[in-house]
């Protein structure tokens, strides 16, 4: 039996802050146009640190060109290629030399898009399962692309019920004795926690982790940082492993998404540790089978509302929170009302003892 709940992280203090003072009506949420949402004043993960070297590599955020290279070992993010004969105007997102604010953390290169003067490491999303200085082996990382808008990919991630259909071969039949879904949100994040008691063991786990029992208890968390379009997907399986995944959906354009994935499988068995990050390739192809045709259908406004069920609560909350933030930005309010760099170990239920850095 499924139980669902949806609540602000801090229900009492400054309640208006979490809704931005203008609650978005359900009707609007069900007709949202994610293609039109552009988030600024945010750190976006653009590359694994090892992909940036002396030779410039090209990235984009909302089609703004970004060239990344290292100068004496320090990452540089420029809107111009060093060999470019500059024939276009500098954007407002960079300094006098055309450079974006850039930082390296968690083994990932982050670029700030927005007002460069507002860039502040305090606005970097908390990812407490990744070593702050990076250094995880490369087989725990991957790059995946989606031909859909980043919010569509994130909505797919926070949506539970598609797994039975798209990923049945990976996750199994999704049967369990009881299931609880809770959603927590503030002005910058949406977190969904799903708890299943005695769930059938996923085929991948049976095979690669050698789980002999027929069922396991599962706690799955999806936490989305709205502005950066970054997500944490954290599964705790008992018996089984703890597999936290960094699942960013960087909007390289408004309808093409790049995912510089990091799965910290350091605590898992040897087989699982190597194989699981690769499952991302398969799972993402399965997802894009639906998200690719979906995405163009969300590019224009329509009067027809999407239908939903109680399983969509977290997804609805995600849409609402995104629209509220976008509405605030449209009015020129780029302030962070909640701190995204606060350690989120507790809210995602991270077993800290396994992730000491």
């Amino acid at each position: 039996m499924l139980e669902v709940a949806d609540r602000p992280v801090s229900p009492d203090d400054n309640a208006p802050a979490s809704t931005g003072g203008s609650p978005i009506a359900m009707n609007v949420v069900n007709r949202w146009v994610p293609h039109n949402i552009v988030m600024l004043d945010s750190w976006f993960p653009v590359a694994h640190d090892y992909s940036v070297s002396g030779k410039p590599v090209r990235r984009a955020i909302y089609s703004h060109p970004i060239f990344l290279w290292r100068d004496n070992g320090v990452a540089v993010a420029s809107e111009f290629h060093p060999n470019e004969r500059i024939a276009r105007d500098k954007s407002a997102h960079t300094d006098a030399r055309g450079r974006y604010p850039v930082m390296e953390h968690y083994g990932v290169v982050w670029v700030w898009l927005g007002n460069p003067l507002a860039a502040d490491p305090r606005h970097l999303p908390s990812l407490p399962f990744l070593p702050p200085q990076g250094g995880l082996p490369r087989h725990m990382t991957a790059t995946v692309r989606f031909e859909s808008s980043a919010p569509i990919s994130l909505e797919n991630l926070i949506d539970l019920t598609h797994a039975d259909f798209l990923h049945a071969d990976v996750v199994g039949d999704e049967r369990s004795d009881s299931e609880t879904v809770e959603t927590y949100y503030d002005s910058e994040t949406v977190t969904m926690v799903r708890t299943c008691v005695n769930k059938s063991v996923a085929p991948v786990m049976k095979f690669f982790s050698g789980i002999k029992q027929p069922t396991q208890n599962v706690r799955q968390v999806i936490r989305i940082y709205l502005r950066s379009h970054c997500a944490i997907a954290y599964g705790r399986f008992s018996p089984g492993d703890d597999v936290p995944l960094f699942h960013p959906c960087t909007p390289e354009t408004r309808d093409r998404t790049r995912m510089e994935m990091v799965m910290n499988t350091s605590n898992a068995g040897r087989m699982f540790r190597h194989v699981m990050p690769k499952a991302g390739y398969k799972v993402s192809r399965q997802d894009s089978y639906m998200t690719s045709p979906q995405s163009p259908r969300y590019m224009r406004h329509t009067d027809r509302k999407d239908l939903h069920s109680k399983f969509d609560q977290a997804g609805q909350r995600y849409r609402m929170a995104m629209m509220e933030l976008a509405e605030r930005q449209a009015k020129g309010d780029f302030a962070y009302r909640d701190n995204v760099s606060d350690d989120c170990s507790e809210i995602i239920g991270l077993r800290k003892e396994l992730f000491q850095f």
Partner: protein
Amino acid sequence: MSLATDLWWAVARSEEVTSKKPLSVDIGDQPVVLWRDNQGIARALEDRCPHRRAPLSLGCVRDNGLIQCGYHGWSYDGETGRLKEIPNMKDQQKFPPIYKANAFGVSEQAGFVRVCLNPKAEAPLSADPKYTYVGTVNVSCSHQEYLNALYDDPALVIAIRGVRFSPYLMAELHEEGGMLVMERNCQWNPLHWPSHFVAEFPLTLLTRTHPSTGETQLTLRDDQFNDLLHAVLSPVPSARGVTAVRWRAEMGVRHPGVRGAILRGINPLSVLATIDGSKLRTTKPTVSLHGEDLRATMLDAPHSAQDQTQAA
């Protein structure tokens, strides 16, 4: 393109619509999913799940005849489009009436599945002839241009083995019983004389086209008025200016001699999947120019033009 909503479009051949796998087709820019339910009835819904807009044609047909979306497994009834089931929601399986996908009218006759965007429209009646040869092609050419090509030079879009279409008409495009009708002289291949110097033509190709849908009956006749070949060609405007063409053909009377034998071998009719662009752009609009005017007049006088009865 905007299309009249009460037209019946032959969007599929009967055998293309199964319970194995949903079929995706279009009527203009409207995507449509077709399948056959557990009673064998062909069904048509908008190819867009009202939950998260995934194409229903990526889903599957269940044993109970419902179509199931492949994304989250919502199941819909084909007749009404109503949502019947959400997986893992055994406690609530009654949904408010707005929980539905758009349903379209479906009618299946003479080997074609016809769909009307207006679910309340009355289905046309048609004869039920037997057709041995069938096919489907998607031609990247607009619906009107496709018909114009058929009128101006059938060789741009079809071929009949052993037969050559002459540029000489026996009857120009005219109205007959609400249809656009014309007749073109044809010769056997290879030629003895170029058509300009021939006193009598041995064959004619008669075409009867519905002015709105462009569905066309083709009849190849010899000079003794024997029907040698009969075919139905159904061009349907589809996404991105493509025209989807379904066709069925049947041999008629046997023409004596070697030529008749050649025609009667394996399927004599080919409906071409591509149009030669350089030929198309230099083909003079000899029939179609007048045809467009005529068609416009007929569509302005709805009493004669809207009759879709197949007088096969």
